[in-house]
């Protein structure tokens, strides 16, 4: 028997690591990955609550989160590629020119 709060703590930790990565990392792809990590943290809490309240909709919601994450990853990576092509760097601090 695993108390629900353990799952919540785990997802909270994952989410916190995602946020830290989002804030601290300088490589755009790594930032992107920390966002995915955050999403995974959220998915875990979704499934945990689904099983606690016996509502399958929690799990269904995880699917939709995944779909959105996939779409986001696709477009995000395309953007990263085009940024790399024009700026020739992936360091976030370098990519701060407010015009094209």
């Amino acid at each position, binding site marked *: *028997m*695993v*108390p*629900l*709060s353990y*799952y*919540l*703590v*785990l997802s*909270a*930790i994952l989410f*916190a*690591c*995602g946020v*830290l*990565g989002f*804030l*601290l990392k*300088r490589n755009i*792809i*790594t930032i992107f*990955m*920390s966002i*995915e*990590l955050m999403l*995974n943290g959220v998915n*875990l809490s979704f*499934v*945990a609550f*689904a*099983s*606690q309240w*016996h509502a*399958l*909709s929690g*799990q*269904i919601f*995880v*699917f*939709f989160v*995944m*779909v*959105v*994450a*996939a*779409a986001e*990853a*696709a*477009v995000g*990576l*395309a953007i*990263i*590629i*085009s940024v*790399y*092509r*024009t700026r*020739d*760097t*992936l360091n976030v601090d370098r990519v701060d020119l407010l015009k094209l």
Partner: protein
Amino acid sequence: MHLALFLVFGIVCVAGAVNLLIQSHPIQSALSLIVVMASLAVEYLLLGAEFVAAVQVIVYAGAIMVLFVFVIMLLNAGEEERSQGSHIALLLGLPSLLLVGVLLAWSVTHHATDSVRVGSLYGDPRTIGKLLFTQYLLPFEITSLLILIAIMGAVVLASKPEVTPVGPASGLTTGKEK
């Protein structure tokens, strides 16, 4: 038994997440993220969500992360520069981290919610499929539309522009020269 499994994979998960932060090369952090996702799949199995676990492995670890690894390899950007950035982040970050830690500890000890009977909710593909295509049909259709648009967007953005780009483009291309 379940608690043991949960703790093992929980720790693996957290280790992967922390590793993602610590590693300087994006490929390393990508691999640690894959580890996190795999261990999460196991966590889902513990919670009885089999279909979600399988999909997690196939979609997340198998497809999205491959995309990430793919792009990392394609761009081959290398190590992250160690910029000696301002220390404000530390000043601001550490206390907030401690605060969050305390908050979590407090919530765990005080609000010990009732335990979860593992496998009590059996998320097998049949029921999830039935639910997905009846009650959640509309979101399903919308997300499919979303995916379509994402694909088109990705193709347009990543395709090689006819005019030579501003910066010196990396030698490698996706092979789909126009």
